[in-house]
């Protein structure tokens, strides 16, 4: 099988794509945003609960999408749960760099991280939006 395809669809991606974790709506929640990829019609809804210490207590998503977008959302929720907002924002920046093909100046992510599995998206520029949809929703929710 082609390396690019194997890099893109690592086992963990296929697994999270098939069975997304933290799928559903957070109750209660105080932050939410919709993610949408107008090019293909994929969409998701992200909800999370930010406590008074600025820690993401719980985070969930629902939506429809390709394996990459679902896996990315699923891995994101796993990663962000329990994190302080400042850290989450650093992860967001790192992740965006990682999937656009530059993993040199990463501050908080490293190769051990499950999110690293999405690095293969860099080989498919048109799929970067799939991988970042959930993250942009997260970023949007913080701004709202």
């Amino acid at each position, binding site marked *: *099988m*082609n390396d*690019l*395809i194997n890099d*893109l*669809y690592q086992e963990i991606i*296929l697994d999270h794509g098939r069975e997304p974790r933290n799928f559903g709506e957070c109750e209660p929640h105080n932050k939410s945003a919709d993610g949408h990829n107008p*090019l*293909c*019609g*994929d*969409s998701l809804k992200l909800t999370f609960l930010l406590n008074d210490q600025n820690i993401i207590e719980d985070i969930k998503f629902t939506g*429809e*999408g*390709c*394996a*990459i977008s679902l896996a990315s959302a699923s891995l994101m929720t796993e990663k962000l749960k329990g994190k302080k907002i400042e850290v989450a924002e650093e992860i967001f920046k790192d992740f965006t760099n990682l999937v656009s093909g530059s993993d040199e100046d990463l501050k908080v992510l490293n190769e051990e991280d499950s999110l690293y599995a999405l690095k293969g998206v860099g080989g*498919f520029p048109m*799929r970067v939006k*799939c991988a970042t949809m959930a993250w942009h929703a997260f970023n949007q929710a913080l701004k709202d």
Partner: protein
Amino acid sequence: MDNSKTLNLNVRKDFPILSKKILEKKDLIYFDTAASAQKPNTVIDETNDFYKNHYSNVSRGVHTLSVESTFRYEDARKKVQKFLNARSENEIIFTKSATEGINLVAQSFYEKFMQKGDEVILSLIEHHSNLIPWFFLRDKYGVVLKFANIQSSGEIDIDHFNSLFTNKTKIVSLTHLSNVFGTELNEKAISICKDKNVPILLDGCQSAAHLKIDVQKLGCDFFVFSGHKTYGPAGIGVLYGTENLLSEMPPYQGGGGMIGDVSLEGASYAELPAKYEAGTPPLVEAHGLGIAIDYMNKIGLDNIIEHENEITKYAFNKLDEIDFIEIHGGDNKRNSIISFNIKNVHSHEVSSFLDVEGIAIRAGHHCCQPLMKHLGVNSTARLSFGVYNSLEEVDKFVIALHKCKEFFNK
């Protein structure tokens, strides 16, 4: 593969891009002509030649280059007129795209013939390009939009369509060939419009290079298409309109080239077709479109259609045999387009997987989100064929599909 009746047009060599290797080793199989067609050498060379040897602005100056440019631009119009069998060159307006043509008609037709509360009939299978310009009329002016249902075959439900007409129906706009199903518009839809004396616009984006177009025989009042889907350049499109309607409607945009006489108090407008061509047009692209039409004529549109029909039927039957494939639309006659899904695999995965096999197909909503909603999917994979495709490519595609299904369901 059954070779017995393959009509091999043997034109692959005419398209330089088709010798490109994908990821340095895979032969390119281009199954995305419905999104945009590849360009033959003649189009590429002739547009180059235009810039190198003849280029200037059109209809503006009297010097040699202006004359040469104008000649090419107007010659392209003649070719388009013949291609569509329009009555006169005055009925051929160059636009930048089919999209612009539809916007032009929506705006100008409204201004002349419609008011608040008047109705437009569209359908569920329309491309966003044939929806949003009409949404503008709804949002800005209170025009009412009605949408014809479709049958499971992918065709418009004619009875429902017929029932949508009232005495407020002012115009109908429908796709001539669905970019999702490949199904052709039932001629009855046009004759109903004729009977009721309501003008009809046909979105010919997908039909222009895949069906023989005769606007007089079709009896449509407007017909639009884009050069880039007919083997010509992007940036040029065509609006055909009957001289009557085009004469009565006001100009769409104002600028140079579309005026008769201008003073600070006002302006008179140029005759057709210049009236609708404000500003410097995409002249080289228009010439390129003319060359693309020459190219199709040289091969023969009948041959192209027969060739594509054969491939489409072959691919349809192959896909229909595979139990993990769901084809959208019925098994009625299709032209050059098949939309499908692999069960439980998102079309993005299919498209990325095929990409590394050198196979280009489209995945997504195909700018038809209302239709996707109706089908209960959020995207489909789409195969679409052109003059350069072959049955052998379909065989390779089918093998790749099996590999794809295996990979994602492992």
